[in-house]
């Protein structure tokens, strides 16, 4: 659904960042937030809600809507739009409620 802008997609000018998404290898670019990287990869849902379990994806991209929640490096309910993608990051879908201590 989302595409990178042509000049932003010039991989030669940008550094690739490797991370894992739900256990599988994935790639974004330096400067991406986690939420932007997921959208660019075509992942428009990143969590299921805490009560009804309905799917949600990044929406406001500015830290307000809390719909981009993901598990990052083992910590649940992180706002993907506020966390910059880093090499080797482990990103997982937030399946419903966060667990205490995780």
């Amino acid at each position, binding site marked *: 659904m989302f595409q990178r802008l042509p000049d932003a997609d010039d991989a030669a000018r940008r550094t690739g960042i490797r991370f894992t998404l739900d256990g599988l290898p994935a790639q974004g670019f330096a400067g991406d937030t986690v939420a932007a990287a997921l959208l660019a990869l075509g992942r428009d849902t990143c969590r299921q809600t*805490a*009560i009804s379990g309905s799917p949600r994806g990044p929406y406001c991209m500015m830290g307000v809507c809390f719909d981009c929640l993901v598990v990052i490096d083992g*910590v649940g309910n992180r706002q993907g739009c506020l966390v910059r993608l880093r090499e080797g990051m482990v990103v997982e879908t937030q399946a*419903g*409620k*966060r667990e*205490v*201590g995780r």
Partner: protein
Amino acid sequence: MVETYDVAVLGGGLVGTAIGLGLAGQGLRTAILDEGDVAHRASRGNFALVWVQSKGMGMPRYSSWTRESVRLWPDYAASLREESGIDVSLHQPGGFTLALSEGELERRAANMARLNAQPGFEHLDYEVWDRSQLRQVFPEIGPEVAGAIFCRLDGHVNSLRLFRAQHVVFARRGGAYLPNFQVQEISRLPGGGFRILSGERCIEAGQVVLAAGIGNARLAPMVGLDAPVRPLRGQALVTEKVAPFLSHPIVTLRQTDEGGVMMGDSQEEAGFDEATGLGILGAMADRAARMFPKLGQVNIVRTWSALRVMTKDGFPIYQHSEAAPGAFLTTCHSGVTLAAAHALAVAPMIAGEGLTDALDAFHPRRFHVPAAS
């Protein structure tokens, strides 16, 4: 043409709607007159415990009255569900008071013993648990937790859903909810009954029940009642929704049916100021994280304060006016715990022969120490 009702309940919070739905259930044409969303509404800020264990020091009858309500609660929750379709998530698995040191545990155990030793106190079963016992129920407790008081009568509900369910049931039973009706004057009609004024609006009712929380202090003298109540601020925090990890409510800490963890129970004299502050909130969060260290990693998503409706001795007032028969007063700070008793016991008394001896201990004459003493 003035609207007329059999009974007007002043106040549309948890107390007023519980009594209102009980009166409507007795076949009375009932109106609830509600100040509206500007009201200091304790019903939207409370901690949602259905609680017995620590109550009644100084008034044994308050403990037995509370226990009557707790016994009525399962039937009450079932009837709310049946009539409104709303599940108020009543859980009564027993509740705990956690102690963060051996000294605190001893003090709390001594308080429970003193409570039970009062003359006329209906024996209350409770247990003092040591740390190893407690770890069977809460494996995640922090190193400072020394033990707990456990009482198997205690529980909790979803109090916002309770508030909603009571309004829905009241309406389904034919009750009239009149919002934005801030009562300015209650006067007695020559032939019996009352006229109630709010600006240009006016209704008449055969009986009137004051259930206006802190507002009762202003309204009570209009009909020969006595409501010396004041606001007592409580602050609370709630976390993001997390997977279930607290199987039982703790008096200062509970996990809601939807997953949020609430922390609360502060008490401050702050007048009508509904502010929150990091001092109290931080202390409550710190105690919670010492009880359950993993909570320290969880995000707080909201904080708020609400004003308890407090008498000088902390106990409810139920009064039938002698000067203006047909005028009743009901006020308390446990609108959740006592909701079942208000709907199923107090409302039938008001609809019937008036308050019985069972409520005598709650008459405000207890505040009137003779001048000579």
